[in-house]
């Protein structure tokens, strides 16, 4: 019996050894050459305008002095794009029976930041000022509309 057990043990050891020796050596292999491909991107540049607050003249005293008011808003553009231009539908109008004029918008810019890996850059941000003027000495019309809707076109 002891002899038989010894035999079984010896056989098992041999089999296990044989199995180990037949396992191929683990080795990481890369396919060469590795295939490559391109990521192509087409960017259509754009600008986007924020809401334009009302150009509120406030109280005008009839036959009084001139009144000047401004409204400020921002325009964000693709970094590097040329500065946008602006145009009113018309440069003057009447509100509450008072003639007013709009001067060409002025703007300042804060240039955007460059993109970093994994994070896009920031846009060029323009701060735009619209100015309206009511000349002094006007009588006005207390029955006339006090609201005049105008349109500003931003071109880029």
């Amino acid at each position, binding site marked *: 019996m002891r002899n038989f057990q010894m035999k079984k043990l010896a056989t098992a050891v041999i089999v296990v050894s044989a199995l180990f020796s037949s396992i191929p050596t683990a080795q990481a292999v890369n396919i060469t050459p590795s295939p490559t491909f391109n*990521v192509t991107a087409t960017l259509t*540049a754009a600008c986007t305008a924020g809401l334009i607050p009302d150009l509120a003249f406030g109280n005008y005293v009839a036959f009084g002095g001139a009144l000047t008011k401004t409204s400020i808003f921002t325009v964000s553009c693709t970094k590097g794009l040329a500065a946008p231009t602006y145009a009113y539908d018309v440069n003057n109008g009447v509100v509450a029976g008072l003639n007013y004029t709009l001067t060409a918008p002025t703007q300042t810019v804060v240039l955007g930041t460059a993109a970093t890996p994994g994070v896009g850059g920031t846009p060029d941000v323009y701060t735009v000022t619209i100015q309206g003027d009511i000349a002094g000495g006007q009588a006005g019309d207390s029955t006339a509309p006090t609201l005049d809707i105008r349109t500003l076109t931003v071109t880029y």
Partner: protein
Amino acid sequence: MNSLHMKKLAVSTIAAVTLIAAAPAQSATVMSSFNVDITLTSLCSVSTPAPLTFAYTAFQVAAVNSTTPFVVTCVGGLPYTVTLTGANVTDTAVGLAYSLAVASTDPTPGVGTGAAQAYSINGTMAGGQAGTCSLASCNNAASTNSLKTITVTY
């Protein structure tokens, strides 16, 4: 002397007869076995995907998704991995950030089947990006990080 010779002859004859009678008629089969040894060198191959294309309008709200397929073919049962370089970058030419991921619709991705296994590169470009462009429209032909490499390790 003569008598002795006769005796010897007689013994020899008897012995010969006995030998012939004792040998039965029979056929013999000899068997031998041998192994067929095969050494298989494992191998994988991978196709080259078409370019992954993005068309993007600055500040657009929705993300842009794009995909390009490729296949990996490996020896059956062989485990492997698929990795990608530059999976999360911002394009150096147009300033748009995007991410790439490797995906597979195969039931056993990462283990060879001996047949082509379907994979794809899925790209996502988040919405709301301004990008960089001095013209109405720009492409990334001058980009220095648009070329990606797929590595299959087995």
